Every structure is written in structure tokens, then in C-alpha cells.
């Protein structure tokens, strides 16, 4: 239907032929007839254009012209493959990194949860920052008080975590992490089953039948999505429960459990301590906002009610604890730990993008200088500034689209890596997948870059004498262009410096953490979890007998240097026992107004200190004679002795726990030994007030430490496990790891931080080096003639070499200074928003500077060498 240009031409030609024929028939001379016909017709291109315009809009033509320009641009870029490849790869790195980080940020921070009406779902947390307790959770009496008084919350859901030994779903008995919940939990959370049903009000209370729901992850990964599990009866420790359903995939919070069971499955939840003790806190609390109630209103009411409860029960709250309630949307609570790190990553990615763009700008600028001749010719032939800009835009569009395509392809593996990384901070990252937003971000960034790049080169001025540019094919570099090239190179160096210094800071922190002395023997000691409460054996003689037998038989194994039961694997169990407990000692008077001192409560068997490499400083170790019925004794850490007894008379004094949990009146225990401090809560050692109790006087441990004599400690794991199973067939033996590996595991988020940042810094460094090398190479090739002249008049090649080298180093130095100044300001600003913001130490800053200067010198080496090897005759003849 739409006529093309050829048809329009044919139509016009047909008209002219008729017109000429008519004139000739009237007797005109053929030549005169043709001229007259043309004159009568009018300006052919304009008329053809007005016919065209009926069918094609101006926009259509503009896009078509741009497409034409892009085809031309593609061809001309194919002739400059090296440059095109550099630009595309640089852009792809910048775009890929940004797109990946952005989709993770979107997935973790912005996407709604699957929970029904998740906007009304809130998480309530009690904390006591005054004694360092981030999350004290709630006790049952506290929850009952809140439930009965608060009206802005339509219903509450409670969740506590216990470990069960699970028997009955095939395979060995295994430890599972289980959530124990009341009947309202799933209703409050707004979750649905994928199979069977979830727990409801009928499953609540001590009289209900045991019922358990499997989490989706457990069902799919451990049970192969077997639908026949519904209705099966399983053993959970001493109780049984029926599997009633499978939960839909959802963010596991507060704990990633395998099953979720009703309270009747956990004897502990039915016990008097759980139900009546206001300080027995182990339950997490969720709520659903009542209709029409805002989060702020609910927060206000909850805080007021909580304050009233605290006033009514002052004995249950630490006076120095600054106990408070925090109310957040569940979504925000889940994303919170990842927020800072993700925003920092986003900033780092943006910096990489800026570096990439300025590098590409450099390359394009250099190229456009080489093309000045071509542009001048086109301008002389009548191309207006618009058309020239369009040519440049077309070319940068080709480059940026290629960069975007490659970047989006790169983003796929990036997203996987970043998501695994972010999963350390927020479980939501596990669900992040590559989504179309990556494409939009990639395309948007590419567009921004393309427009930016098209406006960087200067167009030949229509007023300037074009003769020069037209006649010589040689290169002329204006001071303005040169300055702009240098500015871009300096920007790259400055931003790379910020990233390098940041990465250096993280690396320095990591190295400090990994090499810090811990006070433990790290290499030879294996730690095991041997949870006894899980088997239902509970506290008491049976457990102690099991410990004694296991210790005896493992000690006799070849290659074993020592065995001891404990209660706490350093770092891995951090936070397990909650905040430190208040205690008092005979002969120590607190200064007026000072609260009782607090210490960590630990349980160990004889030889524990020997096995873990903690030296005894005074007194004696526990023995098998420190048992129930004999005198209660404790061993204290050096800090306890020094803080409370500066004169060193701690031995044989009596101490007692003043926390009401330990009974009233509390048992007095004699201090029989002092050991060196070992901080089992923090990898970076701090003073650790710890009080150790003999396992035979408390009755429970749950951790086993085995020191190997030599060789690979892990070689002992199968034998240890077999020996324990021989003693007690249902006993789980889990998470065997040397203390060194435990520390590595605890530090893995730090390691990943350092790793990811080093990656970004590496990319930035690479791009900056390419940038500096490019600028200098360009400047050298533009000054070939100058170098030739200088060599001809007697300059030494060496002199030229150092000249170019120092030019490169100067760019780097200015960049570093700018980066240091900018980075300092940035860090100060960031410190206002992030409490944990740290200034990098001297070492990483200097290190980054040295690396950059070195890289810049290296990058200038090749152009410098070329400058010094200029062939004099050739250089002089070149113009």
C-alpha cells in the first residue's frame, strides 16, 4: 500500500513524460519542452517529499536515518575493532555489575513477601541494648499480658525454636531444627499449605494430638517431594506427631527450620518454667495489625503496654538493660541486615559504572579527534550540527547496545554470585532470580551512556576554516581535547582509589581477624555437637554416664590426645546462652549504684582447659570427684579474678549467681581455679568474664571436644561417631569441625565482603589502567612529530621516556589526591547514616596509592617506550 521512493519517482517521471509529449505535439522543440515541463512541475525533491509525508511521519524518517547511521557506524567500528572491543567490554562490566546488584537489591529490599496481606504483618522484638542483648525474645507470661491488653493487633503468633531428634522419615535419626508454634501462628503469618493442612486453633494447648508441618525446603530437598509423607507418624525426641501438611515456600524467619510442630510435641513448652516464669524467654512474636490501624499506632500502644508491664514486674527486667520493644513490618525486619551491605554494593557498582563511562568517554574522544577530518568533510558537504551529532549518537548507540547485551549476559552469573553472598545477611536473597528488571536497568544505563558519549566530542565549528581539517589526514590535537582526556583519566584514578582503599580496609580487617590470637589451640581440636536433650534423655545420671563412657572410650582411640565435654563451641554457639548473667562474690562490694557484675555461664568436664589449650593460672582443674553432692565449685577466668580481686585473692572465695533463674537463695560455689581468658563469643578477643562449672554438678553439656595427637584431625571423625553410636544408637553426632574451621565459617561474611569489594576494585583498577594507557598512547601518537624534532635536536631517548612516564604518574597522583579528598568527605557523610562506618587505616590508603601509582607507571611504560623509539626521519616526514 505505502508507495516506496521508487514508485514516487516513477509517478513523477510519468507526469513529466506526458507533459513533454504534450508540448512537443504543440510544436515545441524537444529540449525546450523538457525544460518547460520541469519548470512547470516545480522543485522535484520538495514535491516528492510532500507526497512521502502523506505516508511517513517525520519521526519515522528520523528513526530510519538513525538506523542508516547506525549501519554506517557499525561498519566504521568494525574497522576499529580493538577500540570497539575495549569499549564494549568496559561498558559490559559496568552495566553487568549494576544490573546484577540492582536485581538483588530489588529482590531483597523491595519485593513483597508471599505472605497473605504482608503489608499488615509485623514483627515484635524485645531487646536490652544496655547489656548487649539484641534480641531477648519473650516469655509466655509476657506474651499473655500483651495479648490481653493490646487492641491494635488483631492477633499474635508465637514461634520458638527447639532441636529434636527426628526418627521415622527414613534414614538415620537426625537432628532437626523445629519451630514450636501456637494455634494462631500460620493464620497470623498468612501462609498456605501446598499439601495437607497447616496447624490451627485445634492443634493448640496441651491436650491436642502431636502434629507437625514440614517446610517446603525440607520436603523437597530431604524427602524428594514425596506426597505420601502426609499422615505418617514421626518420633520427635520423646513424643510423637503426625505429619499433617507441607508449608508453601516462604521466607523462613526467625529461623530456618525443617519442621514446625505444635506445643504438645515439646515437653519443655508444657513445663512450669515455660508457662509461668516471666524471665524464661525463648519465644519470638509476630502480629497482624487490626483493620484500619497504622504501624505507628500499633507501635505506640505496644510500647506503652510494654512499659506498664515492666513497671508491674521490675524484678524481671535488668535495671541497666534499657529494655525496649521494637515493632517493624516483617518485610523490613527480614531485609534489615542486608540493607547496608546492599546499598554499599550498589554504590560500589555505580562507581564502577562511572569509571567505565569515563574510560569509554576517553576512548571515544580520542577516536573523534582522529575523525575530525571526516567530520569536517561531512560538515562541508552540508551536514548540519544535528546530523553530525546523530552520526556520533548512532555510533555510541551501537557501542552501548553491544555493551548492554554483553552486560546483561554477564549479569546472569553475577546475580547468582551476589545472591549467594547476600544470603549471608538476609534469607530473602536465596529467592532472587534474574528478572526482566535487569534488562531495563541494562538498557537504561546503556542509553544514558550513549547520549552522554555522543555529546562529549566537539563538532567542527562551521565558522572555522575547514581547509586544514580537509586537506591533511594527520592528527591535530587541541589543548582542550587533551585537557578533557586527562580529566577523564584523573576521574577514573580518583574513583578507583576510593574502591581500592575500601577493599584494602576490608582485607586488612579480615587479615587481622584471621590471624588474631584467640587463646585456643585452633588446629588440633575438633568440636562436635552431641545434643542430649534431643534424645529425650534430659539432664541427669544417664547423660553423665554417657559422657563418662564416651570420654573414656574416645580417649583410648589411637591418635587422640585428649577428650572433654563442654557446653559451648567457641564463636559457633555465640549468643546461645543469651546475655551474661549477674553474680556476686564474697568479699566484693559493689560501688554505690553499680549493678552486680555479669559473667558468662559455661559447663565443662575435667581436662577441658587442657584439651582446648587454655592454661591454668592458679588453683586446680575439675576432677571426676566434683560431682553432685560434693562441694559446689567453679573455675573463673582471669578477668573475673582481676576485676573483682585486684589483689589476687580470688581462690577459695565463694560466688553465687544472683539472677532469679538460679533459685533463691542461690547456691554458693567455691572458686577452685583461675584460667586464662578465652573469648568464645567474639573472634576479636575482648576481656571475657567467664565462670566454668563442672559438668557432673550441672548435668548437661551437649558439646564434645577431641584433640588429635597429630595429622589430620578430621580423620578421627568417623571413629568418634561410631564409638558414640555404639554407646547410644539414637545419639546425633554433628557439625564436626576444627576450631580453625569454625572461625573461618564465622568469618565467611567478612571474607565475602572483602572478596566482592576486591572484585569491584580489581575491575576498577583494570579499567583505570586501560584509561591511563589509552590517554598516554594517544598523546604520544599525536606528538610523534614533536618527539622527532626533539630527538633530532639532541634530546636523549631516555629523557623522552621519563617525560611520558612522569606524565602518567602525575595523572595518577592528582587522581589519588582527588580520590582521597572525595573519599574522606564521602566517608564523613556516610558516617552520619551508618553507625558502623569506619575510616580506613593508614595502611590500606597507602597501599591503594602505591598500587595505583605502580599501575599508572606500568600503563605509561608502553607509550613511553614508543615515544623514545620514534624514528626521526619518519616523524619529520609525516607532515
Amino acid at each position: 500500500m505505502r508507495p516506496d521512493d521508487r514508485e514516487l519517482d516513477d509517478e513523477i517521471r510519468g507526469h513529466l513524460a506526458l507533459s513533454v509529449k504534450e508540448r512537443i505535439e504543440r510544436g515545441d522543440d524537444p529540449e525546450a519542452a523538457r525544460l518547460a515541463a520541469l519548470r512547470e512541475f516545480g522543485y522535484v525533491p520538495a514535491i516528492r517529499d510532500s507526497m512521502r509525508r502523506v505516508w511517513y511521519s517525520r519521526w519515522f524518517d528520523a528513526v530510519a536515518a538513525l538506523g542508516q547511521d547506525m549501519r554506517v557506524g557499525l561498519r566504521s567500528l568494525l574497522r576499529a575493532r580493538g577500540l570497539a572491543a575495549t569499549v564494549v567490554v568496559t561498558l559490559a562490566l559496568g552495566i553487568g555489575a549494576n544490573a546484577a546488584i540492582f536485581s538483588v537489591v530489588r529482590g531483597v529490599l523491595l519485593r513483597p513477601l508471599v505472605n497473605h496481606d504482608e503489608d499488615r504483618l509485623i514483627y515484635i522484638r524485645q531487646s536490652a541494648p544496655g547489656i548487649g542483648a539484641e534480641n531477648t525474645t519473650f516469655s509466655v507470661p509476657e506474651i499473655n499480658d500483651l495479648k490481653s491488653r493490646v487492641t491494635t493487633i488483631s492477633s499474635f503468633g508465637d514461634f520458638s525454636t527447639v532441636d529434636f531428634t527426628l526418627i521415622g522419615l527414613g534414614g538415620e535419626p537426625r537432628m532437626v531444627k523445629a519451630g514450636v508454634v501456637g494455634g494462631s501462628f500460620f493464620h497470623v503469618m498468612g501462609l498456605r499449605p501446598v499439601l495437607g493442612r497447616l496447624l490451627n486453633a485445634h492443634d493448640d494447648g496441651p491436650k491436642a494430638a502431636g502434629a507437625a508441618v514440614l517446610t517446603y525446603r525440607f520436603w523437597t530437598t530431604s524427602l524428594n517431594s514425596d506426597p505420601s509423607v502426609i499422615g505418617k507418624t514421626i518420633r520427635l525426641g520423646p513424643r510423637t506427631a503426625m505429619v499433617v501438611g507441607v508449608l508453601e515456600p516462604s521466607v523462613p524467619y526467625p529461623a530456618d527450620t525443617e519442621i514446625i510442630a505444635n506445643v504438645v510435641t515439646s515437653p519443655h513448652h508444657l513445663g512450669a518454667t515455660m508457662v509461668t516464669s516471666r524471665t524464661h524467654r525463648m519465644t519470638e512474636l509476630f502480629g497482624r495489625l487490626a483493620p484500619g490501624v497504622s504501624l505507628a499506632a500499633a507501635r505506640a500502644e505496644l510500647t506503652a503496654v510494654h512499659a506498664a508491664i515492666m513497671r508491674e514486674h521490675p524484678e524481671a527486667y535488668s535495671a541497666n538493660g534499657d529494655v525496649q520493644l521494637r515493632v517493624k513490618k516483617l518485610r523490613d525486619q527480614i531485609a534489615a541486615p542486608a540493607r547496608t551491605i546492599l546499598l554499599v554494593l550498589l554504590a560500589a557498582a555505580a562507581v564502577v559504572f562511572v569509571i567505565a563511562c569515563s574510560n569509554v568517554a576517553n576512548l571515544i574522544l580520542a577516536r573523534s579527534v582522529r575523525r575530525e577530518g571526516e567530520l569536517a568533510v561531512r560538515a562541508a558537504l552540508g551536514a548540519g550540527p544535528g546530523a553530525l551529532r546523530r552520526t556520533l549518537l548512532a555510533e555510541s548507540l551501537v557501542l552501548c547496545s553491544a555493551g548492554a547485551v554483553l552486560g546483561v549476559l554477564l549479569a546472569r552469573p553475577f546475580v547468582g554470585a551476589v545472591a549467594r553472598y547476600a544470603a549471608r545477611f538476609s534469607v530473602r536473597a536465596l529467592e532472587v532470580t534474574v528478572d526482566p528488571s535487569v534488562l531495563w536497568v541494562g538498557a537504561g544505563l546503556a542509553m544514558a551512556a550513549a547520549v552522554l558519549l555522543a555529546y562529549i566530542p566537539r563538532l567542527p565549528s562551521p565558522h572555522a576554516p575547514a581547509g586544514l581539517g580537509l586537506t591533511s589526514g594527520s592528527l591535530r590535537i587541541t589543548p582542550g581535547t587533551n585537557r578533557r582526556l586527562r580529566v577523564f583519566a584523573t576521574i577514573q584514578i580518583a574513583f578507583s582509589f576510593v574502591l581500592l582503599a575500601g577493599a584494602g580496609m576490608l582485607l586488612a580487617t579480615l587479615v587481622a581477624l584471621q590471624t588474631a590470637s584467640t587463646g585456643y589451640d585452633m588446629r588440633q581440636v575438633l568440636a562436635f555437637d552431641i545434643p542430649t536433650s534431643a534424645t529425650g534423655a534430659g539432664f541427669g545420671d544417664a547423660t553423665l554416664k554417657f559422657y563418662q563412657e564416651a570420654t573414656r572410650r574416645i580417649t583410648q582411640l589411637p591418635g587422640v590426645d585428649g577428650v572433654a565435654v563442654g557446653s559451648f563451641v567457641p564463636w559457633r554457639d555465640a549468643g546461645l546462652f543469651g546475655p551474661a548473667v549477674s553474680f556476686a562474690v564474697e568479699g566484693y562490694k559493689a560501688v554505690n549504684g553499680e549493678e552486680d557484675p555479669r559473667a558468662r555461664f559455661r559447663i565443662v568436664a575435667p581436662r577441658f582447659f587442657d584439651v582446648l589449650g587454655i592454661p591454668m593460672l592458679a588453683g586446680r582443674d575439675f576432677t571426676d570427684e566434683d560431682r553432685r553432692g560434693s562441694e559446689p565449685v567453679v573455675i573463673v577466668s582471669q578477668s573475673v579474678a582481676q576485676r573483682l580481686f585486684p589483689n589476687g585473692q580470688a581462690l577459695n572465695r565463694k560466688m553465687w549467681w544472683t539472677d532469679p533463674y538460679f533459685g533463691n537463695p542461690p547456691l554458693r560455689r567455691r572458686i577452685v581455679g583461675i584460667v586464662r581468658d578465652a573469648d568464645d563469643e567474639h573472634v576479636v578477643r575482648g576481656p571475657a568474664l567467664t565462670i566454668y562449672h563442672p559438668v557432673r554438678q550441672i548435668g548437661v553439656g551437649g558439646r564434645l571436644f577431641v584433640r588429635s595427637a597429630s595429622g589430620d584431625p578430621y580423620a578421627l571423625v568417623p571413629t568418634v561417631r561410631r564409638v558414640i553410636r555404639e554407646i547410644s544408637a539414637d545419639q546425633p553426632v554433628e557439625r564436626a569441625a576444627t576450631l580453625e574451621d569454625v572461625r573461618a565459617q564465622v568469618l565467611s561474611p567478612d571474607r565475602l565482603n572483602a572478596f566482592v569489594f576486591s572484585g569491584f576494585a580489581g575491575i576498577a583498577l583494570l579499567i583505570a589502567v586501560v584509561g591511563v594507557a589509552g590517554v598516554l598512547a594517544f598523546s604520544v601518537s599525536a606528538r610523534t612529530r614533536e618527539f622527532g624534532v626533539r630527538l633530532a635536536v639532541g634530546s636523549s631517548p631516555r629523557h623522552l621516556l621519563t617525560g611520558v612516564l612522569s606524565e602518567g604518574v602525575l595523572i595518577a597522583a592528582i587522581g589519588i589526591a582527588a580520590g582521597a579528598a572525595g573519599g574522606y568527605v564521602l566517608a564523613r557523610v556516610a558516617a552520619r547514616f551508618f553507625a558502623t562506618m569506619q575510616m580506613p587505616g593508614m595502611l590500606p590508603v597507602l597501599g591503594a596509592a602505591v598500587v595505583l601509582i605502580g599501575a599508572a607507571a606500568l600503563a605509561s611504560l608502553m607509550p613511553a617506550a614508543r615515544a623514545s623509539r620514534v624514528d626521526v626521519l619518519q616523524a619529520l616526514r609525516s607532515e
Partner: protein
Amino acid sequence: MAKTPDDRRLEILQGTLDMLILRTLQWGAQHGHGIGQAIRAQSDDLLKVETGSLYPALHRLEKRGWLTSEWGVSEANQRAKYYRLTAAGKAQLSRERDRWSQLVNAIGRIMNPAPAGPARKD
């Protein structure tokens, strides 16, 4: 055909070109040159259509579906595009014709009032 002096020639009234083209094509298919000549001849050389107006108008009418076109061979033995009236074009022509006679009437009444009209001027 005698040439008409330029001072005798009339401007084609705005908005009437489409009608003139449609009317011309009522006698059968014709190419652009023929249409232009027909208008000129029919108007006794008083109206002359500029090609710069004629051709865009033809394409506009074709785009609106009032004309169709096909390629043929002209009297000059050259490829030429012949336009033909469609059914929609015929309907449009009759609409325009009505509007035109109303317009002529209305203007005529103003310019040549009836004898019993308003007071005469001196």
C-alpha cells in the same frame, strides 16, 4: 489550446481541490497529469492546479480510501499511476457536492440579496 494570461487565472478555493479531483475521476480512471489537464480544460483554463498541491492531495485521498490506484501505461508510452474512485470516494463526492451547493447558495444570498431585501443604499 490557447494560453490563458496569468492575470485571468483564479486561485482554487481552499478545500475544494479534493472535490474537484473526485469529480474529475467520476468519468473513469485517470493519472495525475490527466486530472490536472481535465480541471484546467473543464474550467475553461481559469483554474490551474499546481503539481505541488495535486500530488500530495492524490496521495492523501488514496490514504483515506477514497481512491485506489494501479499502474498502467500512459499515452507517452511510459509507466503511469492511474487513480480510480472507490465506493467510499463516490459517497464522499456526493457529500462534498451537497456542501458546496449549500455554500454557494449561502454566499449567493449574501452577495446578491433578493429585491425585497433590506433598504437600498444610495
